[in-house]
């Protein structure tokens, strides 16, 4: 496998086949893609109303983590709007986000999730029609019925927002060909890099000393884009600790996984980050039993509990118990 083949350039075959078939049939339902990270696409009348993946931040994460909307305002709007299925309307009505901005963010989240699914691996696809009692889809305009609202509400309590119709379905929708074109455009753009970063797989570690790296941020041959890109570059570099993937950093920042992956690939090309081998990086792993186990010649390990002798003997400090400061006895007496 050459370096450039690390990233697919097209939608996975199974996904494309199922998506094409269902959108031609103007179907409504959910297309599940099992894989790493996998995800799902929601279709309504053949158009895509949403995409979700553990590999990409959803609209909620983009709006909250980035600090665009405060948690308290979000919860208040949710409580006011969600029971009637008008959460998105409520966000705009309260001036927390502009209507156009909300639509953009939801669209970005949709494309971003599709990108994450396609950039990973897909093992199989499954089509699931809507449950018979699901009611009308929330996005069908003003008539969004109570059935959809119940579904949204129930889902909020138990699941990471929405197994049924999430609030974003009402905000944006795209055609299958648009989704395909945009996703493949992103995959191809990423594949242009000498070593494209795999968003959910490659753990990124900053190479230089933090101070030196900060100084070098502006100096790379690929630097000098718009101001915002410079900021993202700095943020990605600051969070590349050898444990995190581009996906992890995207969630931390509340940014799309695609822009973060592109920035990470750029940093990699500039030699400012490297890809840590999966098993050796992230030196934070600690196992506290080893040193304690080795230090005292194992206190008779017949201690009856199910805990291994290491845990039990770890309780007692090798140098004997630490003496806690005590009050003078006469002080307590008088």
């Amino acid at each position: 496998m050459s370096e450039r083949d690390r990233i697919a350039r097209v939608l996975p075959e199974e996904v494309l086949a199922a998506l094409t078939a269902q959108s031609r049939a103007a179907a409504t339902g959910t297309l599940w893609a099992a894989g790493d990270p996998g995800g799902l696409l929601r279709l309504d009348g053949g158009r895509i109303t949403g995409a979700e993946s553990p590999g990409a931040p959803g609209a909620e994460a983009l709006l909250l983590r980035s600090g665009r909307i405060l948690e308290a305002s979000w919860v208040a709007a949710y409580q006011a709007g969600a029971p009637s299925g008008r959460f998105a309307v409520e966000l705009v009505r309260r001036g927390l986000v502009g209507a156009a901005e909300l639509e953009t963010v939801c669209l970005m989240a949709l494309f971003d999730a599709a990108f994450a699914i396609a950039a990973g691996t897909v093992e199989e696809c499954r089509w699931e029609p809507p449950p018979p009692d699901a009611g009308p889809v929330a996005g069908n305009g003003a008539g969004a019925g109570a059935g959809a609202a119940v579904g949204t509400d129930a889902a909020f309590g138990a699941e990471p927002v929405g197994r049924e119709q999430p609030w974003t379905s009402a905000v944006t929708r795209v055609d299958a060909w648009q989704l395909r074109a945009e996703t493949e455009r992103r995959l191809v753009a990423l594949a242009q890099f000498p070593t494209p970063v795999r968003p959910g797989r490659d753990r990124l570690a900053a190479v230089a000393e933090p101070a030196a790296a900060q100084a070098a941020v502006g100096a790379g041959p690929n630097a000098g884009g718009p101001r915002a890109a410079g900021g993202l570059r700095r943020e990605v570099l600051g969070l590349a600790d050898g444990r995190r993937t581009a996906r992890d950093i995207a969630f931390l920042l509340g940014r799309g996984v695609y822009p973060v992956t592109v920035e990470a690939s750029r940093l990699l090309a500039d030699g400012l980050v490297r890809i840590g081998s999966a098993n050796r990086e992230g030196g934070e792993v600690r196992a506290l039993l080893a040193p304690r186990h080795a230090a005292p010649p194992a206190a008779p390990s017949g201690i009856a509990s199910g805990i291994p002798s290491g845990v039990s003997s770890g309780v007692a400090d090798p140098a004997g118990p630490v003496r806690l400061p005590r009050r003078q006895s006469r002080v307590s007496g008088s």
Partner: protein
Amino acid sequence: MSQEALVAEIRGLRERVPGITDAAVAAVDGLLVAADTAAEIDPESLAALAAAGLGLARRTAAVSGRGPLRQTVTHCGGGYAVIYAVGDTALLAVLGDEGLDLGRLHLETGALIERLDDLLCGRTR
């Protein structure tokens, strides 16, 4: 008990399930056994709080008569903290971001917890 095996198990969990940011194994008294955490997380505090949380959840399960405890999930604005019991004497704490798929995590941890229990108790397979 194999030290490397214990560390490999919790690190492997983070590799397999997208969205896990940190994980730790601790004894139920709150003493940390092994941790795979980012620099911002204090593993000792995590272990202590997880032990307290697990104790509370176990008592709540017993008092409310809902059967044995499966796991305790703290759902936050920006992610999750999930605590699983490992046998009667240890626990596994997992931190994740909003993208963590809880269903997938539960699937992955089923067999893992048995293996951790074996490792901690010095049983070999």
